[in-house]
Each structure stands twice: as C-alpha cells, then as structure tokens.
C-alpha cells in the first residue's frame, strides 16, 4: 500500500490528482518545469522538484528525471495524468521495475491499445465492430497508403499510429491532395509523439463521437460508467462533452457499455480507461480507439454517477477491488463540460498567451471548475491552451444547459483571450439545445455569431465611448510625464492606480 504519489503532470489534471491524493491521506510530489515554478500543482503539493526548462521535451517528457525524483523523494507510486508520458508502455514498465506503483493499466495493455492499428485488430478479434480502414499492422510507407486509400474510399482520415487528441490527423477528400496531407500529418505526429507513423480510416460522415468510461480492478471486475458524448469538436479537438448523450437510448447505451467492457477485457485491462466509438446516423457504432488513462472529460461522468474516478484509480492501484458493481451505477441528471482554452475565437482560435491579471470563477449550485491557473499566473506558449474545465450538473439536460449559460456569462478571465464566447454561442444554438450535432457540426454548420441586436449594439457603443472618453480625460492628466515606456506591466500598474 503506497503512501506517497508522484504526479507526473502539470495544469488542471495535476491539481485534480493532488486533491484526490490529499483527500485519501496520501502525500504528493509535484514535478515542474522552469515555466511552472508558481503553477498551482507546485503550490498545492507536499513536495516539488524542478525537472528542467519549459519545453516539454526538456521537462515533463523527461522520464529519466521523473524516475530519479521519485526515488529521491521516496515516492512509491506515480500518477501520469493524461498526455505527456501517460500512454508510454516503456515508462509504465520502468516505474514497475523501479518499484513504483503505476496508477494506470499494465504496460502490456498500454502497448496493445497504444498502437492504434494493433488495437483495431485486437478488439476486432474480440468481436468489437471497428471503422473500416488499413488492416495491416506495422509501419506503412506513403506508397503503400496511397495504394490502399482508394479501396477504403474517400473521404478518409489519416491518423497517427501513436496518436490521440487529433494530433497528426488529416482529412483526405481525394487521392490528389493525399501526398501533401500525409506529409503534414507525419510532421505533426513526429513532433507530438516522436513517431511519424500513420494509418488510414474511413471517415464516417454525420457521426457522433461517443465514448464509454471503464473501471477495472486487479480482481477481474470490469464495469462501465456509461457514455460521454464528445462530438462537439474543432480540428478533432474536443471542446464540449456531455453525459449522458442526448443521442443514445437505454438499449444502445447498454449494448455499447457491454461492448466496451468486452474490449477492455480483450487487453486484460486494469484501472480507468475509455473506449471511444463513432456512432453513425443509424446508430451503428464502431470502435475508434482506447485511451488507456484518465480522460480530460472524466468529471462529467463523476457528476452523473457520483463516482470519484481518480480516487477509484488510486484504490485500484493499491490492489483493492472496485467499490462499485455494474448495478450500482445509475445516471443521475445531466452534466456538461466546456473546455476553456486560451485562444481567440474571433481570430481563428489562435492561441493567446500572457499573464492572467484577474479572474472570477462562476460558482454556486451544480458548478465545478477544474483549473490550474489563477490571477498572476502566466500562460506560456509551451503547453496545451486548455486553462480550465467548466463543468455543470443539472437535474435535466435543459437545466444543465441553462446553468452552463449562466456560468459562462459569469466567468471572467482577464489577460488572455478565451473561447468562452464560442461556448456561449454554442449553448444558445438551437441545434445544440436540440441535441442535433455530430463531429462536423462546429466546423460546418456553426459560426460564432455576429448577429447584431441593435439594442445591444447601442450598449456596446455607449461602453466604447465611455471608455474612450475616460482614456482621453486621463491622457490629458498624464501629458507632462514621460510616456515613452509603455511596457505592459507599467501600463497595468498605471491602470490599477488610476482605478483605486
């Protein structure tokens, strides 16, 4: 039974894991890059050790240093979070070799599911339906892929073998454009995973991305916690998730759950994992991949089932049987998560960096915010743009949407741009309210609105004029001063002084 957990991650998920450990009475060890000295996970952990410079490759991907720190600090377990080293079977194996409990699946399960082509084959043999695509296992050359593509048919997807999170993924509509897209997919995959291999998969049109949360212990018990609908995506990045899916009925839910359990058992799975499916218009579902780790969007499942997935991961890693049986898992109400990213929805979702000067979190009943940032913290270009997850629960889906609207309206983040206006527009859209969306909805049938309510335009005019007027009045007062140096902090400082 381990007592001290090294959290090999950063940001909101590191904070989430540290909280679970603390609530279980376990000590925590944080690791951090030079950019993260004052990150929340460092502030909240019992111990903290520097890994190296800001770039991930020199810090959070430094498996060797992480193991060294685990030994130095006396940690006897490691939680990898998601991303970074979470799905590297060699890293999981090293942990075990070094006597560290790995809070995740066995290395063999990671390996079986980590290579996406092998995974397809494994689950197909276990009787799980898969999306049509390349069926060979092993690295394939561009020539090879170009010759197979017409047999699969267009449109199709180029996907990274080592992939996940939409990285190294490209949509191909014709053979002509394929060579160029293969090149860019391989380049992105190489940069993201250190592995440029790709495979092909038929693009299922009008599909929904629906995934099943799995929990399995070391005593042969495997249960599922129902589904999450993650079809609201942009560039294959999930933006909004909800549970339960408005698209599923109980019968399909149960069938998909059973198949997911089967897929997990096929790789002898232990701990938390997620089976991702595509579900087409006719409610046929196909295995897409398994994420052998904690998922970003796990909180919505926690909200509707009452299960604390991270605590359960830790209990399972300590050798305990699951606290729940399948029949204990009930769906209570509805939950939605909006991923709040530091990016500008009015400028092609370009990442936005800078120091957060102020924030106001929405709070109150049915609201949960998982975040790793706070006022004074600097958003750097080195890591993922996701700065927080806004999660709401409601007695019904309609109430959850209404609650999400009010939470988004309340949320203030100053210093970086965020995609909150995107989420507000989405929550107002009739198609989202009606549950009528698929994975292409955001890109093809949705625009962040520039509809112009004249009454509100008038208010905007008043606001802009008052702010401009105030600025002019103040500039007059400052005119004697040497105003050459207007570097950011001075401006902020002056701003603050002016407003006290």
């Amino acid at each position: 039974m381990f007592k001290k957990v090294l959290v090999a991650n950063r940001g909101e998920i590191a904070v989430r894991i540290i909280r679970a450990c603390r609530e279980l009475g376990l000590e925590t060890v944080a690791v951090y890059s030079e950019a993260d000295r004052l990150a929340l996970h460092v502030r909240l952990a019992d111990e903290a050790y520097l890994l190296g410079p800001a770039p991930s490759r020199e810090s959070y991907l430094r498996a060797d240093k992480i193991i060294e720190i685990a030994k130095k600090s006396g940690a006897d377990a490691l939680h990898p979070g998601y991303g970074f080293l979470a799905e590297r079977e060699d890293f999981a194996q090293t942990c075990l070799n070094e006597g560290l409990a790995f809070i995740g699946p066995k290395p063999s399960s990671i390996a079986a599911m980590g290579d996406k082509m092998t995974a397809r084959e494994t689950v197909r043999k276990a009787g799980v339906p898969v999306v049509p695509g390349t069926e060979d296992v092993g690295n394939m050359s561009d020539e090879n892929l170009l010759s197979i593509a017409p047999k699969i048919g267009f449109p199709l997807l180029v996907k990274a073998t080592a992939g996940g999170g939409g990285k190294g993924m490209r949509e191909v509509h014709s053979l002509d454009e394929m060579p160029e897209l293969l090149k860019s997919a391989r380049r992105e995959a190489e940069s993201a995973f250190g592995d440029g291999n790709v495979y092909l998969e038929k693009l299922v049109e009008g599909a929904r991305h629906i995934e099943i949360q799995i929990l399995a212990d070391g005593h042969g018990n495997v249960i599922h916690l129902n589904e999450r609908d993650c079809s609201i995506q942009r560039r294959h990045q999930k933006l909004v998730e909800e549970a339960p899916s408005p698209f599923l009925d109980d019968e399909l839910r149960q069938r998909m759950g059973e198949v997911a359990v089967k897929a997990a058992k096929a790789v002898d799975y232990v701990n938390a994992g997620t089976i991702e499916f595509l579900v087409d218009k006719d409610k046929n579902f196909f295995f897409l991949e398994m994420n052998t780790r904690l998922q970003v969007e796990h909180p919505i499942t926690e909200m509707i089932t009452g299960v604390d997935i991270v605590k359960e991961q830790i209990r399972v890693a300590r050798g305990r049987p699951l606290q729940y049986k399948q029949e204990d898992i009930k769906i209570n109400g509805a939950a939605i998560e909006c991923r709040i990213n530091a990016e500008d929805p009015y400028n092609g979702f370009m990442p936005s960096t800078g120091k957060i000067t102020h924030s106001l979190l929405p709070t109150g009943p049915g609201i949960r915010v998982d975040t790793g940032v706070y006022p004074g913290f600097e958003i750097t270009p080195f890591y993922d743009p996701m700065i927080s997850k806004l999660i709401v629960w409601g007695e019904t889906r309609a109430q959850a949407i209404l609650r999400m609207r009010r939470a988004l309206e309340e949320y203030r983040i100053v210093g970086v741009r965020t995609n909150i206006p995107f989420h507000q527009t989405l929550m107002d859209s009739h198609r989202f309210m009606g549950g009528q969306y698929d994975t292409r909805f955001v890109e093809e049938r949705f625009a962040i609105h520039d509809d112009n309510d004249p009454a509100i335009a008038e208010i905007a005019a008043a606001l802009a004029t008052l702010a401009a007027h105030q600025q002019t009045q103040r500039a007059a007062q400052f005119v004697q001063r040497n105003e050459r140096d207007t570097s950011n902090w001075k401006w902020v400082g002056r701003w603050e002084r002016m407003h006290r």
Partner: protein
Amino acid sequence: MKYITTVNGTEFNVEILDDKHIRINDKLLDVDFESVSGQPVFSLIIGGKSYEAYVSPDGDNWEVLLHGRLYQAEVEDERERRLHGAGGVSANENGEFHLKAPMPGLVVATPVSEGQSVQKGQVLIILESMKMQNELKAPRDGIVSRIRIKSGETVEQKQTLLSLL
C-alpha cells in the same frame, strides 16, 4: 463632449453630458460606468439596466465583449470627425503588409520564399504554440518581399516574421 461611434456599421451619436448622464442619439440616459477591480472590465448601469463587458483598445478602435458577443467600435470625437471629413477609409491599405507573430512560438515551416507571389489565404508560415501548429495565412494577394525568420527559430509575440508587397 460629443462622439460619433460606429458599431458594426451603425453610427451612434453619443454625447457625454457629465459623469452620470449621456445622450445616445436622442435618448437622455442615466449612466454609472465603473471599472471592476481596476481591470479593463466595466460595469455599466444605464437606465437601470446592468451590463458588464470587457472593453479594451484595439489599435485605433475599441473592442467590446458583451454577452458573449464581440463588437468593434470606432469612436471619433466630433471635431476629429469634421477634420477627417465624412466617410473614413483608413489609409495605408495598399502599403507593405508585415506578418507579425500572433503569439510566441516556434517556427515549424515557411512554405514560401522571398520573391514568390502568393494568394490571399495561402499559408505563409507554420508556427507551433501550445502544442498546436497554427497556419499563418496571407490576408491578401501579394509578393513575399522579405522573410525575417528561419524554421526552428523561436519568436516573440508581435515579432515581424515576413513582409508582403
């Protein structure tokens, strides 16, 4: 003080009468305009309605983010407006265009070369930031007059990367 403020193509005559009163077009309104926590977030109570918005300068204009919608506002004072004459297409439209880095990042590729003709929408530079590769595109047709960075280079926000003629 009288202003002419244009929001999404609609002009509003806004007169600031005193600290607590403004006139918009013909309407006289009570206002109470306060910055929140010394931030560029403002609480406006106008005719009893309570609004809160992010308001910040954006070049010569103002951006107002209100109720999840972004408004671009041009605020001109009446004198200024008279000097400039009516209308107001801003100058400099046909000068050199300088592509600036919208955020700090790593230059992954520059798929164009100096002297090359490019079309509006063509990818000029791929910049990696926050684990995403971002394609920076030409805002108009033109000729690449100068490339100021190399692949593999780390750039600062607002650094000029490339110029178009």
